[in-house]
């Protein structure tokens, strides 16, 4: 379902949705672009590149209480499940790389054992994507990892900026609901609008991006060069801060810990928080043995997970080419360069 929204009516549409759901849109706050809750009277404009934080937090928050526990001394513990009572949420301005990352996150959290915390949030969130008219960052490489500046994967709606208006395409049932619900604001797209959107997409594809060899070549190269000395060389500067994975839209690793609020009676919460493969204790056994004992092994894990292991398991790359891990690494470690140099491709 394709419609047209005049630019000056964007805030109205957002406000209308805001009456029924919590709305987030990119906003410039504290010196960075991020998804921020939109208040009723906020004027919404899309002039962001990409948000610093990815959209994954809407379905996989940084900190999630799994359940609470309580135990009187000498008695059996009691557990109180705390599944999130997720409210309807609509997120505007999601870039296609974050949409595609959601497809990857779905594979992790809903295949095999279903993760009820993720599922509860995922069911309630609508992702309204915004096609990139030009790469928002000099580190973008979505075209090299099977995506595009206008990919619809993982999005519920895709908006494309045209002259004075947006082409608004509903992709999923959830997307159709918010588009149909605003019939007074959104006009049916004409053939010319469809053509204009297609041209905008084709133009966007022509902008130069960083480049990586094909999925098959990179995967084969990484597999062959697992023992390459380049891993250590390229990882030497890594300070293990974890920015690369925290900011990645498809990194899903987490830790589970108990947080105690009282000792007698024992009360507390079992909490999951984002974790990071770049930390030494991520894999350290209680014996002290560590299968990934140095920065080289940990960089190899991050890059291979994205571009080899995920391909072996799901036949798609986990990286969607957003470039965040490159832009935000304090020491300039660059997944495109690392994958290219190690794989020899």
């Amino acid at each position, binding site marked *: 379902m394709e419609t047209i929204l005049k630019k000056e009516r964007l805030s109205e549409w957002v406000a209308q949705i805001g009456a029924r759901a919590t709305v987030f849109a990119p906003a410039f706050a504290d010196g960075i672009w991020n998804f921020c809750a939109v208040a009723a009277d906020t004027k919404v404009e899309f002039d962001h590149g990409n948000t610093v934080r990815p959209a994954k937090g809407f379905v996989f928050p940084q900190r999630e209480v*799994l*359940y609470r*526990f309580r*135990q009187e001394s000498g008695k*059996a*513990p009691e*557990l109180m*499940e705390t*599944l999130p009572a997720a409210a309807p949420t609509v997120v505007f301005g999601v870039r296609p790389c974050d949409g595609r990352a959601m497809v990857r996150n779905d594979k*992790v*959290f809903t295949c*095999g*054992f*279903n*993760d*009820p*915390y993720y599922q509860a949030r995922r069911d309630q969130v609508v992702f309204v994507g915004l096609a990139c008219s030009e790469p928002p960052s000099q580190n973008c490489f979505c075209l090299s990892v099977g995506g595009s500046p206008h990919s619809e994967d993982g999005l519920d709606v895709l908006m494309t900026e045209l002259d004075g208006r947006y082409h608004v395409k509903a992709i999923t049932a959830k997307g159709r609901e918010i588009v149909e619900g605003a019939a007074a604001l959104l006009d049916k797209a004409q053939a010319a609008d469809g053509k204009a959107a297609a041209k905008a997409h084709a133009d966007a594809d022509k902008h130069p991006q960083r480049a990586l060899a094909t999925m098959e070549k990179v995967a084969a190269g990484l597999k062959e060069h*697992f023992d390459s000395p380049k891993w250590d060389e390229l990882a030497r500067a890594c300070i293990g801060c974890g920015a690369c994975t925290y900011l990645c839209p498809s990194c*899903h*690793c*987490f*830790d*589970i*810990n*108990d947080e*105690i609020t009282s000792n007698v009676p*024992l009360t*507390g919460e*079992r909490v*999951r928080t984002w*974790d990071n*493969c770049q930390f030494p204790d*991520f*894999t*350290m*056994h*209680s*014996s002290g*043995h560590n*299968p*990934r004992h140095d920065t080289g*092994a940990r960089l190899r*894990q991050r890059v*291979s*997970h994205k571009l*080899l*292991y995920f391909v*072996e*398991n799901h036949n798609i790359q986990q990286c969607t080419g957003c470039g965040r891990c490159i832009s935000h690494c304090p020491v300039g470690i660059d997944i495109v360069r690392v994958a290219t140099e190690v794989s020899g491709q």
Partner: protein
Amino acid sequence: MNANVYLPALARIAGIEEETRGARAIKTFRIEFPEGGGFDHECGQCAMLSLFGKGEVMISIASAPAVKEYKQFSIMKSGRVTTALHDLDVGDVIGIRGPYGNQFPLDQWKGRNLIFVGGGVGLAPIWPVIQTAVANADDFGSITVFYGARSSSDIMYKADFEELARKAIVQLSVDGAEDGWKGYTGFVPANLMDKAPSPDNAIAITCGPPIMIKFVIQNLQKLGFADEQIYTTIENKMKCGVGKCGRCNVGKDYVCVKGPVYSWAELKTLPQEY
């Protein structure tokens, strides 16, 4: 089990056996579920044990699948949670979720001679296989169990070994010389070479400290065992147990789901990063 994969069931400690003493003591816990609770498991599978306020730890289930009334776990005091578990008493209630992981393909081993090679607390993951094989001895050829510990006081399941010796060939070893010791003196891989079991129609299953496994596999190869005839288990740090938290992988495999049981033929196709 619960629909919520992270929410453990509550179960009672019905018995505690002190297997070995010292800084890295081993205790065997017998866990009983309330009426109608619990779950079935297969040989080689693990369960996540929970101590509220401390955390969780993945432990292999040491009792045989045929035993339905309880599950047994032999736990070495090592990290935060296992240390706290060692302080518990009979009657205390803990959390448990599972079962997790794959299983030893006992069905495929019908008619074969089984050779088990265990060291230290590494006897626990293969103990249910030994028990199941012995209970169904007609299905298999000969059953041999090599087991070694640092000293005779570090041998697990002492009482059970007497029983086992009536049904299987038992080859015990201790690392250092001891007065009155009747078994082999030396490391497990050396005892294996000393007895030199034949690879003909055999399957070898080994579990123990990584260094022991490495030399046992080398020695099995020297004895003529093919990669497909050798099985072992992998241990990695785990948090979720369900293939999501991302830390237990060896290459593409999350050991909590795809492991812990691997034939050497499969394992050698994965990166040697464990």
